[in-house]
């Protein structure tokens, strides 16, 4: 049966990627359908009840700056906030929120339901129809055929999903949800490179069976940070603490005994798991010398006693899980409400995607989220936003928009995925960003909101708030640049006294502010700025103090832009290029970089080899013109 209406864009899946994709597509004016298995699970957090963290909150802020919804929902659902890396510098400073699962889902669902241009429909996609190499419709389990201009697949861990607890296994998309099996089979008939990855989750514990007096309490930070540029901490619900405990040699002993029935060690699971998110059994085997591992005991929500013991993800048999948990301090009488499990699922090599996240082999089919080999809500949401936007733009006949590596972590994410692929589930880290010093949480809006506005992602209200903030910041900067501190003036005396920095000649306030001892509160205390300016000044001073570094990076960006610009022909023959080492030639054959910039990111690449490629690229295009 044909579905009564056709859509510009159909988004499959209501996870974090699907939600941002559907919202972005609808916001820029495309008639959009969000087709998902279960409306109740829209915005569901499959694993840990937390948003943000180092590198991840950078993504959340960028999504927010581009009009996305994750940050606002995290503020509305956050029951425990922390600022991470406070002492290590403003660029790597990050925010993490424990989120109440139910509040989070509700916050997301509300936004999705109220979004104009967006229709929600509950069913499961099982098939798709192509016309030549272009997708034209999707079909559902209930026999509905829905036509769409473009389709964004965000099926997460559901494709061919298989759940493991010890030697027990069954199909499933995550605990409690069915796997997507027909769709998995269908996709495997298409010219897309499929692979298997795995991830896992810890057992959940009933808090009323835990002795909290034996745990170390970890309260949230005050002042409490917020995720969204639009939020204030007033929107946060009641705040509660997390707790910390540790495994011990006895725990490790129990786990070792259960290894023979672990699906990871028995070979039942072939998929590759994330090295940075190892199961407890992995940690014990690989780091045998450690006699304890830290566990963060996180609340699942305000209305439930269930706890998420972060640090003991496992797929060991239930009896071992049960025994091991009870060796842990504070958990001596713990009751497991849901066992931990591992899940193995299909993903598609993201090198098969264009940077717009459209597949190279099937026109108008876009992929976002875990299906591209990533892990994490934030990584999924970031891709969702880009894919949803570009699906809508494609249908409207517009060119794709993708941020570059120096503009956003989103740019780093997409570039890494589409050039390097994913050998293991890909997670964001700040060390992946070579322009880390400029990709800060505090300036995500300055970097992205103006372009978000142009693209149609940013509403008028958000833009107004942004402009007001930017104006205040500009004013601080112009006062800094325009004020001279005269030798022996009142101002000079005040500033020296506040900062302990000697002033031995007339100096502009801007130059003075570059000195290491000068902080924002000194400038407000000296009367040049008011207390209200302080938050803006803090930010202005980061740029002032980092000026030298930022300028050097500007040059590096220019250099890479120049390289980025040079396109390498798809049919380039690396075989015919003298002077390339065999090793590089093989790597080039494999990656087939579309630009010189992408070639530059191949490990082992040298400047001379890049020169060669650029000359050959141009020679190639020249030959074709004359041919």
């Amino acid at each position: 049966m044909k579905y009564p209406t056709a859509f510009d864009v159909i988004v499959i899946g209501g996870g974090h990627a699907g939600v941002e994709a559907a919202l972005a597509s609808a916001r820029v004016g495309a008639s959009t359908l969000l087709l998902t298995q279960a409306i109740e699970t829209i915005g569901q957090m499959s694993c840990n009840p937390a948003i943000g963290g180092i590198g991840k909150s950078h993504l959340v802020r960028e999504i927010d700056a581009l009009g996305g919804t994750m940050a606002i929902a995290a503020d509305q659902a956050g029951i425990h906030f922390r600022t991470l890396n406070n002492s290590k510098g403003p660029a790597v400073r990050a925010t993490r929120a424990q989120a109440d699962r139910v509040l989070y889902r509700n916050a997301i669902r509300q936004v999705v339901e109220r979004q104009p241009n967006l229709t929600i429909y509950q069913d499961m996609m099982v098939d798709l129809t192509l016309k030549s190499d272009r997708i034209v419709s999707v079909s559902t389990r209930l026999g509905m055929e829905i036509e769409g201009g473009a389709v964004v697949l965000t099926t997460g861990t559901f494709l061919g999903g298989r759940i493991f607890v010890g030697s027990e296994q069954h199909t499933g998309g995550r605990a409690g949800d069915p796997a997507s099996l027909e769709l998995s089979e269908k996709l495997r008939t298409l010219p897309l490179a499929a692979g298997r990855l795995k991830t896992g989750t810890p057992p959940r514990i009933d808090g009323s069976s835990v002795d909290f007096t034996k745990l170390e309490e970890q309260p949230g930070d005050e002042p409490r940070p917020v995720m969204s540029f639009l939020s204030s901490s007033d929107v946060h619900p009641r705040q509660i603490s997390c707790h910390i405990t540790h495994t011990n040699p006895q725990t490790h002993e129990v786990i070792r005994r259960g290894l023979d029935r672990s699906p990871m060690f028995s070979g039942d699971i072939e998929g590759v798991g994330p090295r940075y998110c190892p199961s407890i059994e992995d940690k014990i085997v690989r780091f045998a010398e450690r006699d304890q591992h830290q566990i963060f005991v996180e609340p699942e929500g305000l209305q439930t006693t269930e706890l998420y013991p972060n640090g003991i993800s496992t797929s060991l048999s239930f009896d071992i899980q049960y025994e091991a948990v009870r060796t842990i301090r504070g958990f001596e009488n713990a009751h497991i409400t849901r066992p931990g499990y591992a899940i193995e699922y299909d993903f598609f090599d993201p090198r098969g995607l264009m940077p717009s996240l459209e597949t190279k082999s099937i026109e108008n089919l876009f992929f976002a989220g875990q299906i591209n080999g990533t892990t994490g809500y934030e990584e999924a949401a970031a891709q969702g936003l880009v894919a949803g936007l570009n699906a809508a733009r494609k249908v409207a006949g517009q060119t794709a928009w993708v941020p570059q590596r120096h503009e956003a972590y989103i740019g780093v994410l997409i570039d890494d995925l589409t050039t390097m692929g994913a050998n293991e589930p890909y997670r964001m880290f700040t060390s992946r960003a070579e322009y880390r010093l400029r990709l800060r949480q505090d300036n995500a809006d300055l970097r992205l909101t103006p372009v978000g506005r142009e693209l149609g992602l940013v509403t008028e209200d958000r833009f107004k708030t942004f402009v007001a903030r930017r104006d205040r910041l500009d004013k601080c900067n112009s006062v800094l640049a325009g004020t001279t501190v005269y030798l022996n003036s009142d101002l000079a005396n005040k500033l020296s006294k506040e900062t302990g920095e000697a002033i031995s000649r007339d100096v502009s306030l801007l130059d003075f502010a570059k000195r290491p001892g000068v902080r924002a509160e000194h400038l407000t205390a000296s009367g040049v700025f008011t207390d209200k300016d302080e938050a803006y000044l803090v930010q202005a001073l980061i740029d002032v103090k980092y000026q030298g570094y930022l300028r050097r990076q500007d040059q590096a960006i220019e250099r890479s832009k120049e390289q980025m610009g040079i396109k390498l022909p798809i049919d380039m023959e690396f075989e015919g290029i003298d002077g390339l080492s065999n090793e590089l030639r093989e790597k080039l054959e494999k990656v087939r970089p579309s630009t010189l910039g992408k070639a530059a990111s191949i490990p082992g690449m040298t400047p001379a080899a890049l020169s060669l490629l650029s000359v050959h690229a141009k020679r190639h295009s020249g030959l074709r013109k004359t041919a």
Partner: protein
Amino acid sequence: MSETICAIATPPGRGGIGIVRISGPACRNVAQTLLGNVPPPRSATHSDFCTTEGEILDSGIALYFPSPASYTGEDVLELQGHGSPVALDRIVGYLLEQDVRLANPGEFTERAFRNDKLDLAQAEAVADLIASGSAEAARAATRSLSGEFSRRVRELDQGVLMLRIFIESAIDFAEEEIDFLGDQEQQKQLAEMQALVESLIERSSAGLTMQLGLDVAIAGDPNVGKSSLLNQLLGEDRAIVTATAGTTRDTLHGELSIDGLPVRLTDTAGLRESDDPIEVMGMERAEAALEQADCVLWVVDDEDVNAAVPEAYQTKALTVSNKCDLTGREPGAVNDKVFRTCALTGAGLDELREGLKGVAGFRSGIDAFAGRPRHIASLKRTHNALVTAANELSALQGELVAENLRVAHECLGEIVGVTTSDDLLGEIFATFCIGK
């Protein structure tokens, strides 16, 4: 806007002139600082090449070709100096401090090509040229792959990687109970790496001089034994030797190799007051040769107690106190700048040869690497980044320490190949138990 690049455009080694070519948007700024003005387009202008501090690096002809009517299609500045490798190096070294970087092999031509200054046939030739350049580089690389140089650079690369593993995991895994910032151990490692880079720079600079060789002029009063010294060093009767003062009129050349170090010797006319027009011309030539030389052997009579090296050549002169057979004093090195010799027998010349090697940067115990200017430039930038990293570490600026180490790693990567952030993360996961 693209970067500005520079390179020595004349072949390594000698030549009457040496050209440094600069291409890119910074040319006008460079001209302004180095020449004091931007010369009129396409006309040869004589000028000093001067640092902002007023130090004269060289002097010669400057030519300015504004874009697009230039070889590369960009603004191009050509500086034609005296051609001594040392002077050229100083000019390039200064340029590298001014937002100009060293050109890659064939990069000028590549730019010309990109700006449609070459036709297809020429382009084919360029590709081959770069290919041969990099094939040669590849050969050189394999040669040194087993060698000391690359072993040392790799060692350094590994050292930077180890430090980055600590710093980056302290940043990216702040909750994992690993925090190494402020640890004395890291200051120590940084200091060790700095020392390692310094010795690498020294050794590869020495290696560079070893390839390019040394220009040595023999000068002094008449009749002190200059020509005898030339003949003795060359081991042949190149110059006429007589007991008459003023025998040598024109400059005379000869080449020799001291343990592989190419040395080009120039014998000159003795310097004194004279009315003889031929002798005066000879002395003018002598002075020009002295200007150009990397090193001057200033010959004096061992009996002459008042002999002294003229002010102008003091920094690059070795004093040779000749005819010591007549004073009866012991031949050999008096110190590392003064040698006592007998040019008739050759006594004291072994020590003098050692002295010349020292000038070229081979001190005993140092073995030079076949350093290339590009390697040295990368190592110098590595060194700067390590120094800044150490400062930021004292100030506990975690992310700035990390940034400088990243830059250092990138610079070393230009020599031994890049380490990607993914490689780095892999090392982190292999080193620490990370993850929840």
